[in-house]
């Protein structure tokens, strides 16, 4: 898609302009504040429905509807329109967008609408406009910020948000699984307790249930399942409630507590191990901090935005990008992963035992109530129960609790308060159990146990299912995050590799003379994007470390082109370059022209600049034609810019002469000739006397240019003679003769220019007198441009291979070896 005609109405500083690029490159130039950037904004808006300049960092409070239109059109948004005739797939299609409805792109004919919108989907990536501001983002920003810029360009911010969500899901699944492990251990212990087993196993439980069934005249079962536990049995009447604990259960619970107390040493060892791990992490200050605040960082990343306002305290963060800082810190958490795994393992061992003690505590409390007993000194018991609960919570997120200074001060040994258990539970219950010895028959006890077994087994089976589910959820969430990061990293790696190759190629076109062995290194590193460049074979450095500002600008330009090529896949052919060569010198600008012409012959560049010299260089180098030079001048708020079609010099002189205004014609001719020969001398490396003012007159420039050209022709002729290419020798002889003729003619005519420029009244020349002067200059100019492509001829040296020095044009019509 290329722009054939563009009409801008009431956008930014423009009231109304029409430019007609006819699918070719365009240069819009003029002083600052003349509305050039409004053309950039208009094209940007037309293609993607937004104005990039009004979005992103530092644009808080800027709105398209308020600030995208001309200041006087805010209440008439229907009249804020960008229209274009575009060449699309060999047809002319009209597209139009208004700030009134920025998301709506009108397409005529309508049948092209869907196709046009698909193509313009690429424009939404914003990879069609480059300004100096963007260059700085690519080159000088820190690795994490650069990654963010590129990610934003690649439309990856949502990807990073999704990754943060998957991290949260994985963490939550881990906590949830830890719960399920404890719950299952408790459920197993209840089976052990109820059936008086020595340890949990399904087989042992089955044997015990069959013993109970036999006592009640039931049939043996081969598998423990809920429907079979009481299958075919006649109900026995029992005095106690279903949920009441049997004597055996109470005894087993007491036994279980005593057994748990035997584990005191093991658990104290685990606590010691945990504390050692915490201290190890604590010694590495960063790890400690990142581990502790990991969740906060993750939450922060999803909440922080370009405003740099802390989502926690609401204050403005002034030391770099808050989001980048959070991302970096979060990333470093991964270093603590191994230690975290060991922490999880040790804390789960302790937590399971704590949960069992909690369960036993509740059970024995119930047992006391069954016997109508009240626990004396309740405060003491409550404090102990609080301690159990505190340990249960502590071990769910142990590192956070430890670092938060909330680790129970008495240590895990605090839960092994044997005196409390003896006095509050064991002693009174033992006494009661002795009294209740013969209340129920064996069959009644068996029946009651089987009833309870139904509930207990149900809880066990449920816990088993939950554990399996929790484990699957944990596995899936870990795999989902891991695959997502892998998919992101491999995709980005391949993109950066592709972009790197293109970037290096383009950069070497611009800097072939001074950095022919240039290489770069672009690769993702977690949340950062590493970008390093070779500095004259002395190593790899950040692009803004050692290279000049001009080189950095070239890098930004080349990286932009490389990304553009990758992202647009040559479907969106429009590229807008908004004042991007400010720090680049004239020679390298010529190389940029070469890059644009040779590497992007199928693109349409819309180039803005405040530098007339660059605009003219683009013309003389053949990037843009005279017809597509738009000179913006005399901007005012009511009318916007005055657009001067940069007329062809000869037409403009003719206009003056038609009015018999010879002094103006002479003035134009002299100014243009000086400008032209500055470029010629530069292109041909002509020897011009050095002047501190950097201002040379035509009399100093033109002879040097002629002398250089003649010298090159002589050398080229010698080379063609050696190669016995007589036709080319003859051609050069012709050119040489022509130079002499034209110069001789000019020496006769040139006096007229100076006379009139200085308004010498003595020289009262008329139109007829001045026309031969103009013709002579026209021929003179023609000596230095290619008759086929109209580009300025230039001297270049190949540093590789044959080390050849040549004079050539852009199209290859002129190619003289002068080595």
């Amino acid at each position, binding site marked *: 898609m290329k722009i054939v005609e563009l009409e801008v109405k009431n956008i930014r500083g423009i009231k109304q302009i029409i430019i007609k690029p006819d699918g070719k490159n365009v240069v819009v130039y003029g002083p600052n504040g003349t509305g050039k950037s409004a053309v950039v904004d208009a094209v940007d808006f037309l293609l993607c429905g937004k104005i990039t300049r009004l979005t992103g960092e530092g644009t808080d409070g800027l709105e398209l509807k308020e600030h995208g239109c001309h200041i006087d059109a805010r209440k008439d948004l229907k009249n804020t329109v960008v229209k274009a005739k575009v060449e*699309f*797939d060999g047809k002319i299609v009209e597209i139009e967008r208004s700030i009134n409805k920025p998301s709506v792109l009108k397409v005529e004919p309508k049948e*092209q609408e*869907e*196709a046009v919108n*698909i193509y313009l*989907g*690429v424009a939404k*990536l914003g990879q069609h406009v480059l300004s100096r501001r963007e260059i700085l983002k690519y080159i000088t920003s820190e690795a994490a910020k650069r990654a963010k810029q590129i990610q934003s360009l*690649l*439309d*990856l911010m*949502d*990807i990073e948000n*999704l990754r943060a*969500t*998957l991290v*949260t*899901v994985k963490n*939550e*699944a881990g906590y949830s699984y830890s719960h399920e492990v404890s719950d299952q251990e408790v459920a197993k212990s209840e089976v052990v307790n109820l059936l008086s087993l020595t340890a949990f196993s399904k087989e042992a439980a089955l044997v015990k249930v069959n013993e109970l069934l036999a006592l009640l005249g039931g049939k043996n079962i081969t598998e423990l399942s809920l429907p079979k536990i009481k299958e075919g049995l006649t109900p026995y009447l029992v005095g106690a409630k279903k949920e009441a604990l049997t004597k055996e259960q109470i005894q087993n619970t007491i036994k279980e507590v005593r057994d748990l107390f035997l584990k005191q040493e093991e658990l104290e060892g685990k606590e010691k191990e945990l504390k050692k791990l915490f201290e190890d992490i604590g010694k590495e200050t960063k790890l400690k901090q990142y581990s502790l605040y990991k969740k906060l960082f993750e939450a922060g990343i999803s909440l922080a935005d370009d405003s740099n306002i802390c989502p926690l305290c609401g204050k403005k963060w002034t030391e770099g990008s808050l989001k980048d800082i959070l991302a970096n810190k979060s990333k470093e958490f991964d270093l603590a992963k191994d230690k975290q795994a060991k922490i999880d393992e040790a804390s789960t061992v302790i937590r399971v035992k704590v949960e069992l003690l909690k369960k036993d505590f509740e059970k024995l409390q119930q047992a006391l109530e069954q016997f109508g007993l009240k626990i004396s000194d309740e405060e003491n018991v409550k404090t102990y129960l609080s301690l159990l609960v505190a340990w249960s919570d502590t071990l769910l997120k142990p590192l956070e609790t430890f670092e938060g200074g909330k680790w129970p001060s008495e240590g895990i040994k605090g839960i092994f308060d044997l005196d409390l258990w003896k006095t509050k539970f064991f002693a009174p219950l033992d006494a009661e159990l002795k009294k209740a010895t013969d209340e129920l028959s064996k069959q009644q006890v068996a029946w009651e146990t089987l009833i309870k077994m139904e509930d207990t087994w149900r809880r066990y089976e449920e816990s088993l299912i939950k554990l399996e*589910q929790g484990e*699957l*959820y944990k*596995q*899936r*969430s870990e*795999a*989902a995050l891991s*695959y*997502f990061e*892998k*998919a*992101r990293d*491999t*995709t*980005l790696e391949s*993109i950066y590799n592709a972009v790197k190759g293109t970037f290096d190629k383009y950069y070497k076109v611009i800097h072939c003379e001074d950095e022919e062995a240039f290489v770069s290194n672009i690769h993702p590193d977690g949340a950062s994007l590493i970008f390093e460049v070779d500095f004259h074979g002395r190593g790899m450095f950040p692009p803004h470390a050692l290279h000049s500002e001009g080189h950095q600008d070239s890098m930004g330009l080349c990286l932009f082109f490389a990304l553009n090529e990758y*992202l*647009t*896949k040559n*479907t969106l052919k429009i590229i807008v370059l908004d004042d991007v060569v400010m720090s680049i010198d004239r020679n390298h600008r010529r190389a940029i022209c070469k890059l644009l012409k040779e590497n992007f012959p199928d693109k349409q560049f819309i180039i803005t600049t405040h530098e007339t010299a660059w605009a003219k260089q683009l013309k003389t180098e053949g990037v843009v034609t005279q017809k597509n030079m738009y000179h913006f001048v005399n901007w005012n708020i009511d009318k916007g810019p005055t657009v001067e079609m940069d007329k062809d010099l000869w037409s403009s002189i003719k206009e003056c002469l038609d009015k018999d205004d010879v002094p103006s014609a002479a003035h134009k001719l002299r100014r243009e000739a000086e400008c032209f020969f500055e470029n010629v001398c530069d292109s041909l490396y002509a020897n011009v006397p050095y002047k501190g003012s950097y201002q040379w007159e035509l009399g100093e420039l033109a002879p040097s240019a002629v002398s250089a050209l003649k010298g090159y022709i002589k050398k080229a002729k010698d080379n063609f003679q050696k190669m016995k290419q007589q036709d080319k020798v003859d051609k050069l002889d012709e050119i040489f003769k022509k130079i002499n003729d034209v110069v001789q003619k000019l020496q006769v005519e040139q006096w007229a220019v100076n006379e009139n420029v200085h308004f010498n009244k003595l020289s009262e020349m008329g139109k007829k007198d001045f026309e031969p002067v103009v013709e002579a200059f026209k021929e003179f100019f023609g000596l230095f441009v290619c008759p086929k492509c109209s580009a300025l001829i230039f001297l270049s040296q190949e540093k590789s291979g044959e080390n050849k020095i040549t004079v050539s044009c852009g199209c290859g019509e002129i190619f003289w070896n002068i080595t």
Partner: protein
Amino acid sequence: MDIPKKPMETGTVIKNKSVSDLIFDKFADLVKSDAVFNGISSELEIAVRSEKPKKVDIVKVLQKQIPKVQDKTEETAK
């Protein structure tokens, strides 16, 4: 070059997949190749590819239980 009629019909459009799409495609391939996601891979892909992926939707899919019988049916269908 032919004008594409629908987004997925032509090579041109496929070439112009966004980087996000390329990441999601790769992610979907990895997920489909892992048995732990049997029976939920498509739903997971939909959940993460949605315009604004919600944690609650992702959790719901990841927690989804697929009866073993259904797995077999799916394998047979494949």
